[in-house]
């Protein structure tokens, strides 16, 4: 039996938590139009399929953890949803904020002087983005010059062999 057939994958998030994760991932991965002046109007919503891949990866990641860690990470996701009122004074859930407001909220969380809030930020951001730049165009955007992360290094000696058989 191949390893892929043997690896059943267990989801770890409820649909509600997936919606929260999707909203956060959208903000983490939003970009600006090249000519944007920085007033927020030029924000580009990331590709939906890309966000969905990251939600799926995050879901499987949590599913691969022990019961206690699954519970803890689930709690972090819930906290991420409800903390805008504490962090940026907006009486709204994170997933209902506009993209620009979500980015501001997450930035404020990252730089918050209370270290627990910064930990909440990093504890959710990292697993949500583990897969974000792992393949395809996002991987290429890092400047990584191999086809995939599993591809072997292109050695100079191999190139020379190709030119001078």
């Amino acid at each position: 039996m191949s390893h892929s057939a043997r690896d059943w994958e267990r989801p770890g998030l409820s649909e509600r938590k997936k919606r929260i994760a999707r909203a956060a991932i959208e903000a983490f991965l939003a970009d600006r139009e090249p000519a944007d002046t920085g007033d927020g109007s030029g924000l580009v919503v990331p590709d939906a399929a890309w966000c969905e891949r990251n939600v799926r990866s995050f879901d499987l990641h949590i599913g691969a953890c022990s019961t206690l860690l699954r519970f803890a990470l689930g709690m972090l996701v819930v906290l991420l949803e409800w903390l805008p009122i504490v962090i940026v004074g907006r009486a709204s859930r994170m997933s209902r904020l506009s993209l620009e407001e979500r980015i501001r909220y997450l930035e404020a969380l990252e730089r918050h002087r209370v270290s627990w809030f910064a930990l909440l930020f990093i504890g959710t951001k990292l697993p949500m983005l583990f897969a974000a730049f792992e393949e395809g165009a996002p991987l290429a955007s890092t400047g990584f010059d191999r086809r995939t992360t599993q591809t072997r290094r292109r050695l100079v000696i191999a190139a020379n062999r190709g030119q001078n058989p």
Partner: protein
Amino acid sequence: MRSLFGGLARAPAARIDSDASIVHGRELSRGFRHRADVVVVGSGASGMTLAAILAEAGLEVLVLEEGPYYRHQDIAQFTPTQSLRRLFREAGMLTAIGVGQTPLISLTVGRAVGGSSLLTGGVCYRIPSRVHHEWVREHGLTELSEARLEAAYVEVERRIAVTEVPVDMRSLSTAKFVEGAEKLGISMKPLRRNTGHECEGNGRCNFGCPIGAKRSVDIAYLPSLLAHRGRVVSDAMVDGVIERGGRVIGVRGQLLGGAFGAPSHRFEVEASAVIVACGTVHTPGVLRAAGIRSYGLGRFLTLHPCARVVGRFDDALHGWDGALQSCFADSLDDDGTLFNSVYTPVNMLAASFPGVGPELHARVRELTHYGVFGTMVHDEAGGRLVPGIGREPTLLYEMAPRDLARLKKGMGVLAEMAFAAGAREVLLPIFGMTPLRTMDDTRRFAAEPLDARRLECLSFHPLGSARMANDRRRGVVDDSGECFEAPGLFVVDGSVLPTSIGVNSQVPIMAMATRLAWRLRDRLV
């Protein structure tokens, strides 16, 4: 009969329902009862090493591994996130909870056939002489002297092909930090790694070498184990021991990893010698299940806390091209700080950059310009393990103020190296911190107090939760690895190390397992 979770054991079926030498426990349709000369719980650097040596001596050895088995060819095809989910305990998110002024520390621990040896950067050190001397002089452990371990070191280094990393295998990321170090008068030395002369510098040793150059134990020892009288059952979690006449004579547990919702099956294995090699974090749980309450069990744990400093340079470095780890500096070794070259897979590096949205993307687009270097601290024993909810223990760690100061100093020195080599900005692993832009910023960082809870800290070498001692009042196992309180039960993994060692622990653990295996062989054969 004792169990980690209590409760009555169900009688398992008769025999292992497979003739394969590596049995995937998750595919078995029923449990089993088995008899072997030696049963080894855990298949990492220590367990596999010892199992192979005993099998080569003609003993029938059964290795039980909680995690799954993958061929190294399969592992080489995993993306980093697949590796995290399939090979790393807690999918790479195992964390030590900081007590007081201590950061949360993320631990890298393997959970697969091959254990953490699958996840190393291949770095091979011996235990420094001063640590050996301390163990002999202050702990009275003459068996752990440098001279007694010499033959075991030589044997291990031969089998895993330890060689010095040539200078031309260094990545440009590493070269930048080396350049900075030279300007500061810090000398860098080549690391030794277990890749022979086959390393191509693919830069992903810790997520599976694409060409199998890294001689982890699944490559260096497993084939020999299987060629002799050894077998491995993966997906088999031990949760209790079997005792008879006051002596441990076997283990029992359950098979994991079946289809979601499918019932798990029980197993029992009896043997003349029972070896526990579950690693520092999980061995105490098995020993507690055996009724052991020795002083120090689950306490005095050391982690070698590490921090990673990232610098942005004008040149494109493509830091992924080159040996993942290639050189080190021990100029602050007397102060308990080591600097090791390292790199991080691009997707992990990108995810860890500070910022959200456009700010994050701006850094990701410049990723080729970033170089990485690491620092590691020879720490005091501030960790302890307490039974958690479910099968994972909870790890608490209180960092000594001296260790925090060392870590901060190490990060400061790395930032200075980066600026000396021309870095435009340096990202310290401190959540929410503005990047350093100049050498003056580095000096200000050194002068200001550091809130440890904002520190992004890593650990790759948890050690010492079931310490070896020459007296049952001071430790858990004697100098042959046998538990004081449970005759017949041996421990061979990193948990027996009496103190932190200040260097990467794979070769020391394997050398100690080799020496213990030789002594056990003399008793059993």
